[in-house]
């Protein structure tokens, strides 16, 4: 018998290598806003696919979603 799942049960995602629980129906854009991250300064990859700004508005997080949020930093190493 499948137990009843309440609507507000947190969704378990993996963000930048860390486990995180978020609300249901949260989009990637919502997540960025919650984290206080300006979308124009970062690149977002969801389950290995790079997400455009439009897709960030519509893509809803599900349990098991793997997200990487990266940004450009100083680098050269020479």
């Amino acid at each position, binding site marked *: 018998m499948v137990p009843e799942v309440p609507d507000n049960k947190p969704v378990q995602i993996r963000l930048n290598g860390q486990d995180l629980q978020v609300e249901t129906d949260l989009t990637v854009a919502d997540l960025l806003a919650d*984290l206080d991250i*300006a979308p124009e*300064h970062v690149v977002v990859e969801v389950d290995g696919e790079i997400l455009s700004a439009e897709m960030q508005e519509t893509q809803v997080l599900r349990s098991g979603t793997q997200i990487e949020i990266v940004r450009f930093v*100083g680098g050269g190493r020479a």
Partner: protein
Amino acid sequence: MKNELIIAGRTFGSRLFFGTGKFGSPAVMAEAIEASETELVTVALRRVDLQAPAREDPLLSRLDPERVLVVPNTSGARTAEEAVRIARLARAGGGFEWVKLELTPDPNYLLPDPVETLRATEILAAEGFVVMPYINADPVLAHLLEEAGAATVMPLGAPIGTNRGLRTRDMLEIIIEQARVPVVVDAGLGLPSHACAALELGADAVLVNTAIASAGDPVAMARAFALAVRAGETGRNADPGGRRKLASASSPLTGFLREG
């Protein structure tokens, strides 16, 4: 050496490329970029710090795309797949078509993996990227990369961040002699004289980061590197005189104290 440096159809007015790591503050970095007169800077891609994302200074906002070409590097990658992933992220996220390949599995000397670098170059060149691979000073590898579609080759003078200068001089000479793509000496240059010597040797450009960023006065050091690169290029183009074993007087020695 040609009079103009052209890579993948783009002309560069400066032969000094600039790595943006290790600077004490973004403001100093921006000032050093200005003083260096560079037209190409490298940046890295990293995970956002989730604890303090808002406090991180957005690097790209400090760089004027009208004045400098921003080239993401793949630092941190150990395999071709990881490097390809970074390059694709940078292109999709920031529209960057150029990529500096850095595949350094060795944590002590950060030496580049030639096999993975060649594989990544093949993949990315086929996808239309302008690929600038960081390599050991290996003339055979340089040739293979050229064949694979690399836009430049970037052999090291010494291991990254060591400031030890042109330790690979003899191999660099062979690479420069044989290359049909621009040769950018990358890594290990610690003093303006090292950069000058690289240009005198015939290198098309140098990439400098640590020597500027770790100097007591990074802005002054950036200026010094700009001058050194110009001196090296000008001296090279002036066709240096030949070397000889015996002395050759530059003032006349005869006709006064003794007959001659």
